[in-house]
């Protein structure tokens, strides 16, 4: 599997084509992304945040998610929790600012949801947005896909 991705990514970089929906990493169209691999799904003034498929893939098996408190605030660009894998501990950086109205308690029992379903069941927090204009500074799916490829190509 990994060797297939290697080939595909290399081919993509070489040909300079954008191949989203690669064998491993999916990027969803209706989400926005920051450059630290978090996604946000907006619904009115409410937003759901998680980490991307690209991120969970690089982290390896997630064994613990440190969740923030409901009611606390997050700021765009600031960290609000952490994801632990066998390999490493990584801070989660919020793509938006606002008040945390819900956290995914399921992750306490099943941290692996972040790996299995990074965009659905592996969501991390739900936020009441302060400033919808912040979304403009985020990447759309095309930009994020390209961003990931450029990042991987550097290695």
């Amino acid at each position: 599997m990994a060797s297939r991705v290697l080939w595909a990514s290399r081919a993509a970089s070489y040909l300079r084509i954008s191949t989203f929906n690669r064998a491993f990493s999916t990027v969803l169209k209706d989400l926005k992304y920051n450059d630290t691999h978090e996604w946000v799904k907006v619904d009115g003034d409410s937003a759901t945040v998680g980490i991307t498929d690209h991120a969970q893939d690089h982290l390896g098996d997630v064994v613990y998610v440190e969740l923030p408190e409901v009611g606390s605030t997050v700021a765009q660009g600031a960290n609000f929790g952490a994801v632990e894998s066998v390999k490493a501990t990584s801070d989660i950086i919020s793509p938006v600012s606002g008040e945390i109205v819900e956290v995914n308690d399921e992750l306490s029992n099943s941290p692996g949801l972040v790996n299995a379903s990074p965009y659905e069941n592996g969501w991390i927090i739900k936020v009441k947005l302060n400033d919808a204009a912040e979304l403009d500074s985020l990447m759309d799916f095309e930009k994020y896909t390209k961003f990931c490829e450029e990042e991987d190509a550097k290695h």
Partner: protein
Amino acid sequence: MHLPITPFRTKKTTNKHQPRSNKYISSPFFTPALSLSLNSHSHSRSPHSHTQTMRGGGLLLSVTRRLSRHFATDSAPLKKTPLYDFHVANGGKMVPFAGWSMPIQYADSIMDSTVNCRANGGLFDVAHMCGLSLYGRDSVPFLETLVIADLAGLKPGTGSLTVFTNENGGAIDDSVVTKVKDDHIYLVVNAGCRDKDLAHIGAHLESFKKKGGDVSWHIHDERALLALQGPLAAPTLQFLTKDDLSTMYFGEFKMLDINGFACYLTRTGYTGEDGFEISVPAENAVDLAKAILEKSEGKVRLTGLGARDSLRLEAGLCLYGNDMEQHITPVEAGLSWAIGKRRKAEGGFLGAQVILKQLEEGPKIRRVGFFSQGPPARSHSEIADASGEKIGEVTSGGFSPCLKKNIAMGYVKSGLHKPGTEAKILVRGKPYDAVVTKMPFVPTKYYKPPK
């Protein structure tokens, strides 16, 4: 989040990688968290570098705190073992370790790899470690001045874990030492301690010889070390040798032909499983690795340093540089059993006065195991008692792939070291429940003779 190094790309050229500068390399293995993050950040991928300095947080910071002792200072290109190309061809994700480019994992995840080693088997490239031989009539008395083992009392063809001590009784390195014959000792020391150990042994060798001692040494750089561990280790290896492995027990050593190559075989390992360390001529290392993997029909997998660290932690084994250091004695580390009985009576090794005193009075701190809640405890996490007072420090920790819970090793004040003692471990400033537990965490399966 700042990602750990991308695992997919393997570097074919010697890189301009600059490992973080450091005092000394001391660990044969690293805590996976450290090495990966180090690698990713030292490549300064431009989209992230500004954010790293701006935030000063995330992965870089959490890892920086743990990095200080673990990496090499030199800016020399990374060394490669004879299996380097073989690793790359097999999907190995190469990372710098103790000055070498080593595979941290392959296509399978560290968790899967760890579980597979215990269920089937794992083949590890440990050629970065340093094997050496001592020859001469006085090999045994010479080495006994430097280690705690009762080498004179060892049956030829057997070996043991031992510790090289300094004048304060602290550990310079741990090592598996084998008495091949009365005038030949074979030992393996950690990659990260190679320079330090060889300088230490070399200096003492010189003065010993000046006094008329008959001993010389040879560093086995012409050989490569492989480790084959797990329930399929012996059956697989048996296909490749005529010698009957069923009568070779844990700790025993043989020189024999494996797959037609002249090997040194020791029934030992760093995983808690039954298995072997095989010293093979460097030019035959790849062929031997291929033969082993083929004979196992794919059940024994190439296994990297990430899994190796999980395995040794589950087995309750010390990692030099984390759980043992220059200022920690073998007694404090729970290795009093490795001090020969005669040595306890006679001393005669560096730091003996300190160690013998600790044996009599008991050490002030002791190494213990923990189960903990919350996020996995990592090296340098503080251990506190119920009232919040500091009682110790974690030296190694992680999530156990086999037990599916957090395990950790650390030192606590004597008196608070009994299994069942409750404590708190602080991770990122928050206390989490922990309980002292016996090690090994996963039962060991050493191949011992029937009683």
